[in-house]
């Protein structure tokens, strides 16, 4: 089981990237009591049979791991949502893409901590491959809202590359500086 909500997020984004998506859009919205995350891609999608099987921990897509019979990403998340009276929803259409949405109450005793969002975004944005990733992050508290947007192509252009240790260090600073504003809002 994953230790933080962010680990689920990274896992689900990775599913999208491994499904040959060219565009992935991630929403992360948070207020004092709940967090809502959506990962939508235009990857290979699943037919109704595959979609049903994705919830089974003893199913994994053929070819993803030959000789292996487990796929734990989605079952972990679905279990966490049901344990915490949260919401888990997955929609998919073969050859069109998949959208996963979940809402977790932050005050339920079985909800894992939110975890390191900056590190999660850094990892997702620098995952190798040709794809566009847009991250929309917002937080609201006491009637005020703060948000920021990260776009992979824009960051790649600004940094020159997304794989050298120098670029990664700068990107980490950049994302952390965005996240700090939201942190201030949420923690007064």
């Amino acid at each position, binding site marked *: 089981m994953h230790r933080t909500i962010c680990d689920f997020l990274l896992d689900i984004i990775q599913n999208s990237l491994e499904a040959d998506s060219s565009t992935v859009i991630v929403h992360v919205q948070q207020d004092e009591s709940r967090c809502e995350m959506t990962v939508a891609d235009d990857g290979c999608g699943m037919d109704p049979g595959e979609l049903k099987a994705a919830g089974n921990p003893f199913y994994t897509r053929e070819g993803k791991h030959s000789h292996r019979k487990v796929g734990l*990403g989605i079952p972990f998340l679905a279990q966490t949502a049901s344990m915490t009276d949260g919401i888990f929803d997955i929609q998919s259409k073969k050859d069109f893409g998949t959208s996963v949405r979940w809402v977790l109450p932050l005050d339920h005793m079985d909800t894992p901590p939110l975890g390191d969002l900056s590190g*999660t975004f850094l990892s997702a944005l620098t995952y190798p491959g040709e794809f566009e990733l847009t991250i929309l992050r917002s937080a609201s508290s006491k009637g005020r809202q703060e948000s920021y947007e990260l776009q992979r192509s824009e*960051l790649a252009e600004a940094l020159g590359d997304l794989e*050298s240790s120098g670029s*990664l260090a700068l990107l980490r600073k950049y994302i952390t500086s965005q996240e700090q504003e939201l942190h201030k809002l949420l923690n007064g």
Partner: protein
Amino acid sequence: MAKMTLQELRALREQKRKEMKKRDLSDKTMQVVIGMGTCGIAAGAKDTLNAFIQELEEQQVSDVIVTQTGCMGLCYVEPTIEVIVPGMPNIIYGKVDPEVAKNIVRDHLMNKKMVSDHIFDRPAADIIDQGRK
């Protein structure tokens, strides 16, 4: 730290490029590949990635390629990483927590000395087979 703009990020990159002492570590590029499958993530591979970036920055090394891949098939020793240094065998390290990551940067990348306690050879056989298909 104030919220940075993209312009500031661009400017910072130019500045770093000039400042950064080009360490003559080798004529070819070194690479660190971090396994980020469900197993890697659950074992803390995100913190490992972070530790590599941080330590490389501290050591002022800006030209190591740090990338990620899915499960390497060694789920029992996650987080696993592969280190590719020209002139040295490619090594798979297992149980790489942030502390081990720092040692790998200092010993393996900078001093060409392997961190022997954490060597786990190469990807599991079924993963290698899959690559050959």
